[in-house]
């Protein structure tokens, strides 16, 4: 399987000088599909290759820069609003894109996202929801089944949207559903946090926590439109952690103690295999307890090698559709026991195949400008 152009360009930005106009067109298309276009702009800037970008392609990167910069400013403001809304006694822990961005991590540069994810203690969940509603957020409209599904089985509230600002928030009380096969020690995860600079009373998971949460998220996810972007997050988080004195020496043990040995193993494996992340041998060795059986591993290799590519026609290979379907089914299997899974999945697949999505017909919708592409996670 060939390496997609966007991946090789992100990994070896010096190759920018040799690209033809059609190569640039392809790189922009793949980058856009994979939600990596602002990342590409940042990587080319950081490696001083931006001047090799022809003027017409450069415009797309400039537009992406503006969107990323705007999101950075917006997430800063949004987190202030969230902190003000949530009662002071409740700790607010930022997850994913918002955390990377506000902690100033490399993974946050040029990281596009469509919502702010926060983690709060489960026993404060009702209180948090009430406070957010009082401050202008509303629960997304969905049918009774989906709402019930979120509240009963998921590890997060149904997505909420701020009425005036149009921004989205996902409120988590755990990083995986209670029904999941993997039991995560959420309390232990929340104990190792760092303060977010400039935001009193706002926390984020520590470097290892971010890395392990990212791994658990990606390798439990069933819809992998952002899979490659998430793998690049892992790569950036791992490289940055390796540059600290503590490095990743504790990663394997911490993963095991949290119940995340398996996703950590996959993270190590696919970062290395697909992005060439330079992880020391001891990291590989310490991740090995999470390794599945040889047969499962062969299957997972076959799936993830196909799924962790840009969701773009030019990156689709024989078996991509089958791999994506398998990972979709697997994600549900990991998420809930069989007696819940079968009726749920039957319903979801039916809806996915037979009910047409209702798309916007006209330009001018609010989404055009913010570049959001939020997908329901049910």
């Amino acid at each position, binding site marked *: 399987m060939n390496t997609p152009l966007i991946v090789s360009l992100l990994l070896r930005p010096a190759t920018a000088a040799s690209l033809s*106009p*059609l190569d640039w067109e392809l790189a922009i*298309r793949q980058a856009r599909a994979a939600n990596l276009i602002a990342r590409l702009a940042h990587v080319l800037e950081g490696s001083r290759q931006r001047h090799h970008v022809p003027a*017409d392609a450069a415009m797309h990167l400039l537009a992406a820069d503006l969107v990323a910069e705007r999101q950075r400013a917006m997430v800063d403001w949004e987190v202030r609003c969230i902190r003000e809304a949530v009662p002071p006694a409740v700790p607010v822990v930022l997850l994913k894109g918002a955390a990377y961005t506000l902690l100033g991590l490399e993974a946050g540069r040029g990281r596009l996202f469509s919502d702010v994810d926060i983690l709060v203690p489960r026993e404060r969940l009702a209180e948090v929801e009430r406070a957010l509603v009082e401050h202008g957020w509303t629960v997304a409209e969905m049918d009774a089944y989906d709402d019930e599904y979120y509240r009963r089985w998921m590890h997060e509230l149904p997505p909420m949207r701020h009425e005036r600002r149009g921004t989205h928030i996902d409120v988590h009380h755990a990083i995986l559903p209670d029904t999941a096969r993997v039991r995560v020690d959420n309390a232990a995860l929340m104990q190792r946090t760092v303060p977010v600079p400039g935001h009193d009373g706002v926390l984020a998971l520590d470097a290892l926590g971010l890395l392990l949460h990212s791994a658990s998220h990606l390798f439990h996810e069933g819809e992998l439109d952002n899979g490659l972007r998430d793998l690049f997050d892992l790569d950036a988080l791992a490289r940055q952690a390796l540059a600290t004195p503590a490095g990743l020496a504790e990663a394997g043990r911490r993963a095991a103690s949290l119940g995340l040995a398996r996703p950590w193993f996959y993270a190590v494996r696919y970062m290395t295999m697909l992005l060439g992340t330079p992880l020391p041998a001891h990291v590989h060795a310490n991740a090995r307890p999470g390794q599945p059986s040889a047969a499962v591993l062969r299957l997972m290799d076959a799936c993830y090698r196909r799924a962790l590519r840009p969701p773009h*026609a030019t990156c689709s290979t024989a078996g991509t559709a089958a791999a994506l379907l398998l990972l979709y089914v697997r994600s549900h299997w990991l998420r809930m026991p069989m007696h819940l899974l079968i009726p749920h999945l039957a319903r979801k697949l039916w809806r996915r195949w037979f009910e047409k999505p209702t798309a*916007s017909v006209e*330009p*001018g919708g609010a989404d055009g*400008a*913010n570049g959001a592409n939020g997908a329901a996670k049910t």
Partner: protein
Amino acid sequence: MRLADLEAPALRRLLARGELLLATPPFVVRVTSDLPQVAEALHFLYRDFGVLPPDRFSDFRVEVRRVSGVRGWLKPQARFSVDGREAFLPLPQDHAPVMLEWGLNWCVVAHAHQYLILHAAVVERDGRALILPAPPGSGKSTLCAALAHRGWRLLSDELALCDLRTGTVSGMARPVNLKNQSVELISRFAPEARFSRSIAGTAKGTLSLMCPPAEAVSRVCEAARPGWIVLPRYGAGEATTLSPIARTECFMEVTEQAYNYNVHGAAGFSGLARLVGEAECFRLVHGDLDAAVALLDALAPQTVKTER
């Protein structure tokens, strides 16, 4: 090469292979289509636009294709997608030309954040832009079509592209979307105006597309400095009036018509303030096209008759 230089079969072949690179400056669009309606509409509406070799960079890759299968056979439908992703629900095949127009607008609005994009019609005279920002139904396309045949150069009937660094405004000089009542009005007003066949039953009623004047297309790369901002409102049977308004009031209404004002943050605020500051601001209530055009025409007395 201009699109008009292509023979119809050559155009259809390029469209089928996805090798038609249409230059609608500042963008290049790669169009793929297997629909004769699209080839015909392009040939008619885009005749004066440039065509580039297929190995050049294109900004957007759009496809308008027939929907296959039983559903397509029962009721022939067309699907619009941008680089493989469907942007709208399928529409009847004869809507394909307007679908392409809406789709191109969507591409620009969703991606071209290097500009501050206003939902506005724009025409130009002597290097100064007359900008008509307004919500749908305010008659801006009709005014724009009329002005485009009265010595004003057409920039756009729908999207004003504001370059915040230079403070200039440009448009793509693409075809003008008109509802059928407006087509009658414009045909009477400017008998030389040429229209595509009318398309019934679209989300906006019966529509036709008006060919952009050849001069507007050949000068599409010339940006203009802001001259006048006129906020139009159509009032059937009302007296036609053009009244000056405060720049602050105008500014607030223009932000309402900006697609990506939020993307630009502080630079958007100061850039738009500069744009509005450089322009004279008016509110137009129009019930009569001739009267409205006369009032707008008087804003910029023509020094040289540029009409063909």
